[in-house]
């Protein structure tokens, strides 16, 4: 039995990237359905995505990447997909690796598969300060989850049906990084990492600015703390 796989692309003002990303997914990902969640873009993201043959869901208000991705999870649950893979709209994720991500889920040995940039050194460059911060959080997450996690901020993740149903109901939409993984671990889901190679950004710059680089660590600590204090439901 083949699995129904959905690629979820959260997109906010990505008209220059989205077309190529969709084309590559259709060509290289081996028959996955493509859903673009248009997060209230002001440009022609919606039209471009539709033109390239993707299913498009448009949000009336800007919810941010977490809220957009969660909309994709809800769609996947509604349409009965077995696996959903989150893919960035900027073209950094290599579609040929989607099958590698979903393999562990198809084999039944994992509920969540993270495409890690740091599990193997494959030449992905991160600014030193950001890398240091990431190391702190992956260490913290690894300790809490009692399992080595090298890339908590990776946006390249595959989730199975159970995780999708869970995240459709509750998802830490503001900063869905370490917090999401810890919540999953506490729910008893099995998290597996596999190494991935990143492509260069085709257009635009990273969404993380100066203010966010201070706010992010603070907010993440708070999120992890809240996740730990929350009682199992």
């Amino acid at each position, binding site marked *: 039995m083949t699995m129904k796989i959905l690629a979820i692309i959260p997109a906010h003002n990505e008209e220059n990237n989205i077309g190529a990303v969709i084309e590559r997914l259709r060509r290289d990902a081996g028959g996955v359905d493509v859903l673009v969640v248009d997060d209230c873009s002001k440009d022609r993201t919606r039209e471009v995505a539709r033109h390239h043959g993707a299913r*498009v869901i*448009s*949000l*009336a208000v800007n*919810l941010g990447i977490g*809220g957009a991705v969660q909309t994709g999870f*809800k*769609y996947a649950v*509604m349409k009965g997909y077995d696996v959903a893979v989150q893919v960035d709209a900027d073209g950094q994720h290599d579609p040929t690796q989607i099958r590698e991500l979903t393999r562990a889920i198809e084999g039944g040995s994992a509920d969540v598969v993270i495409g890690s940039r740091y599990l193997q050194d494959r030449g992905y460059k991160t600014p030193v300060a950001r890398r240091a911060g990431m190391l702190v959080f992956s260490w913290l997450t690894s300790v809490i989850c009692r399992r080595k996690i090298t890339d908590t901020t990776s946006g390249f993740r595959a989730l199975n049906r159970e995780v999708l149903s869970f995240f459709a109901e509750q998802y830490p939409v503001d900063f869905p990084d370490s917090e999401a993984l810890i919540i999953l671990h506490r729910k008893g889901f099995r998290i597996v990492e596999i190494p991935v190679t990143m492509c260069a950004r085709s257009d635009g710059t990273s969404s993380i600015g100066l203010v966010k680089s201070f706010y992010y660590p603070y907010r993440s600590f708070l999120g992890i703390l809240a996740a730990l204090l929350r009682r199992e439901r």
Partner: protein
Amino acid sequence: MIPFRAKMIAVLVAVMIFVFILHMVRRKKLKEEYSVLWVLLSAFLILLASWSGLLVGLTRLIGAQSSNSVIFFFGFVFVFLMLLSFTIRLSKAADENKEMAQRMALLEGELEDLKEGVRAGGGTTAPE
């Protein structure tokens, strides 16, 4: 003792605030749910203005030096509670807003599918 005129003005203002809040609730400009703290506050203000023994007693009760600081203390506590309750309600509203936007987007997608199905097949069943 507080001069009679000052006391009268204080009572008058307190009563005006009370009436104004009730008026807003009556005209549905302020939901009953949100008016609870405000009604309590204005009722307490009337009491405080008309009965000077209350403040003196309160000051003695918590052992404060001056009744001014007692007013400031309770004022701050009230403002703090009010702000906190706003933040809680705001969080709830933001969450509901998110759910609503997501559901609307999904329904819109479904609607487009249905329309296309009708246009393509002339039938009324959803394409699948």
